[in-house]
């Protein structure tokens, strides 16, 4: 058979099986690919995830530190039906009806947690809170012992089960293989990499027998650049069942030896509901799961935040009410978004840069500010990757010749659960008109008024009263306000056109908070149709001139065509700001 024949036959084979994919099929297959890509992205996030090994986390709920890393890894493994190697062993060790963890902290306070991988339930008991999370329906039951009140809340904390799963599974795999991992920090995903601050000094795996019971002890010594002394970790695994039984972390806190110990066991049964972990059945139940109009608003605001297109935005805060050479005095802020990654840049003026001329009245201000950025050095102030926020700190450094430059001196990673709001959200196009409302919060009481007497025309009013004494707003305006009022525009996907925060004095008299009134004065739609703010006025922002209040006005210039390479969202690294 010659080449010509081959080509003819190949053509016929191709003609027999045309590759025109029906649009519906193509759409569904593309969704699969998109899903796969996002899982890989999640893996990246998992690898970047920092651990909080030592400081007990503020949001301790089911007995362990929150570390979404493992969850991401496991979600991938489980969703893709693994059958070999790591995933197989991991799945085997996770085939436990219940996992129970008892944690004793360095200060001796105890937290107990239960988790069922099969049932997808979790519970925890700590001195200040009792929680029961049903991941299947994404409901969280939370009991406040101080108020003796039980709350039904709309969202579980997804991060909190991952740590348990990962720790048990990874140690199960190590026990199965009976050798230490080649790259411990990469394989012990629950530790995270603490972003370059952690280094493995030593690791050992040894078989020990105590009272006739064989154990595999995996010992790990790590240093962390932010801690003066190394951390010693012991993971004790049942050599027969390959199940983790103990994790003990030893180090020093404030110069004193400190130990945190977690004991694992695997009972056949666990708590069926929150009452099974000590909540009195007589406790009143407050349902905070939004329904009806509240749910619509909750979903609509969140959808707008999540579905916003990728962009680069320049925000300029210009004070109105005083004579101000804003084109010289004001510095732009830079925001980037790509999917669930965000970055905000601080800017530093370049030395010796000439003051710009006032732009013409009809100038394209977005372009003008874009060009103006050339006069500044930009540095990543915060980078958000999924649930992890990297916050950088800068400081002036004196060179040997006496001159000064600015260094990015440190980067602090932190974890958040639930929806993420960037620190400067009020200056960002999608968040500025969709601030956090508190709907679904344990201590928030929302009320809707469909026909408010005041506020922007055509808007409905959402008032949210804060009912807890914790973290209340103080005289400086810091903290959670006593009440927030949001005027939402149903004609523009419920974006917030005005937002006031208030507090009440001892007599119950309403007092506006200085700088606590935002009005969205101009909006636009993204290429995908998401409404966003382009001009926001912050009234009476705490400054006066000649007795007259000064408003801060945020002007937002959004570029949806900007180049957004992935490296833009890499965690910042300390070093000289160029």
């Amino acid at each position, binding site marked *: 058979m010659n080449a010509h024949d081959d080509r003819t036959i190949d053509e016929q084979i*191709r003609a027999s099986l045309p590759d025109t994919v029906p649009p519906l099929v193509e759409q569904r297959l593309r969704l699969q690919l998109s899903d796969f890509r996002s899982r*890989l992205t999640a893996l990246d996030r998992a690898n970047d995830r920092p651990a909080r090994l030592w400081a007990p986390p503020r949001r301790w709920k089911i007995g362990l530190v929150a570390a979404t890393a493992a969850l991401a890894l496991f979600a991938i493994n489980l969703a893709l039906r693994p059958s070999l190697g790591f995933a197989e062993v991991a799945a085997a060790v996770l085939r436990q009806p219940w996992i129970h963890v008892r944690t004793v902290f360095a200060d001796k306070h105890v937290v107990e947690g239960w988790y069922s991988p099969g049932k997808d339930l979790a519970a925890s008991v700590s001195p200040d809170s009792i929680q029961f999370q049903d991941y299947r329906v994404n409901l969280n039951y939370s009991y406040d012992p101080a108020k003796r009140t039980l709350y039904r809340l709309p969202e579980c904390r997804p991060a909190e089960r991952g740590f348990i799963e990962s720790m048990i599974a990874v140690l199960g795999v190590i026990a199965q293989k009976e050798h230490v991992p080649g790259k411990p920090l990469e394989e012990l995903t629950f530790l995270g990499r603490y972003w370059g601050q952690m280094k493995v000094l030593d690791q050992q795996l040894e078989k020990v027998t105590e009272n006739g019971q064989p154990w595999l002890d995996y010992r790990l010594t790590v240093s962390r650049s932010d801690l003066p002394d190394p951390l010693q970790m012991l993971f004790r695994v049942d050599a027969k069942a390959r199940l983790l039984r103990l994790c003990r972390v030893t180090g020093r806190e404030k110069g004193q030896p400190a130990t945190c110990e977690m004991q694992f066991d695997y009972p056949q049964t666990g708590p069926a509901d929150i009452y099974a972990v000590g909540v009195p059945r007589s406790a009143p139940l407050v349902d905070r799961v939004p329904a009806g109009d509240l749910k619509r608003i909750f979903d609509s605001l969140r959808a707008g935040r999540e579905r916003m297109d990728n962009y680069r935005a320049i925000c300029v805060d210009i004070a109105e009410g005083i004579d101000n050479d804003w084109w010289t005095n004001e510095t732009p802020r830079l925001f980037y978004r790509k999917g669930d990654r965000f970055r905000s840049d601080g800017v530093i003026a370049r030395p010796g840069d000439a003051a710009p001329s006032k732009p013409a009245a009809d100038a394209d201000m977005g372009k003008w500010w874009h060009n103006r950025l050339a006069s500044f050095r930009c540095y990543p102030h915060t980078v958000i990757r999924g649930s992890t926020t990297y916050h950088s700190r800068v400081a002036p450094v004196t060179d040997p010749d006496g001159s000064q430059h600015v260094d990015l001196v440190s980067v602090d990673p932190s974890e958040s659960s639930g929806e993420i709001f960037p620190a400067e959200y009020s200056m960002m196009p999608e968040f500025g008109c969709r601030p956090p409302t508190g709907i679904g919060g344990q201590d928030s009481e929302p009320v809707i008024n469909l026909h408010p007497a005041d506020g922007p025309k055509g808007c409905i009013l959402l008032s949210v009263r804060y009912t807890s004494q914790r973290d209340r707003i103080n005289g400086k305006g810091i903290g959670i306000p006593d009440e927030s009022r949001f005027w939402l525009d149903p004609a523009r996907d419920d974006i917030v056109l005005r937002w006031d925060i208030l507090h009440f004095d001892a007599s119950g008299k309403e007092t506006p908070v200085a700088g606590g009134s935002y009005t969205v004065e101009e909006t636009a739609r993204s290429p995908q149709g998401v409404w966003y703010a382009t001009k926001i006025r912050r009234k009476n922002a705490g400054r006066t001139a000649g007795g007259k209040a000064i408003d801060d006005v945020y002007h937002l210039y959004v570029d949806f065509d900007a180049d957004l390479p992935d490296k833009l969202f890499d965690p910042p690294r300390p070093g000289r700001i160029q």
Partner: protein
Amino acid sequence: MNGSSTAYEQIIGPLENRMIRTVWRITRNRQDAEDALQNALLAVWKRWDRVVRHRTPSALVLKMCVDAAYDVLRQRLRTRRKVGGIDSRAEPIDNTPDPPDGLAARERSAEMLEAIQGLSRRQATALLLRVFEDLPYEEIATAMGCSAATARKHVERGRARLQIVLARYEPSRIARSSP
């Protein structure tokens, strides 16, 4: 390569269309195409490190798609034989302008798929990568873990088997050569 998402953009991203077309060509119904792509992505996931380090990652990924689609195809045909002659999951709607032609085309597709299913796995993989993806023998060989000569041999044998089916439809063009 740093970062799985970066690797995705560099390896899978440019292949997305070909992956979709590959699984569709072989499976030819939505459910099977979804299953095949899912299995292919699972295979890619499990061998991600290997994919990233592979000399010709695109060929390897396409091979995984072909393998996955071929497995689904075999499974479907096996089930059909057990259950009876009718493939309950075949495409139900005929959108062709001329239904008789469409019927003939579908019949021919079905026979071709049956013939492909009758090839050995390696023959089918090599042939499909060569014919549909137009991969050079060297890349097929690298993806399959064999020599280029072996890959060529697989393609030739597979082609000869399929020629018999084709000869039934276009004897004048095909029958000049005998397998």
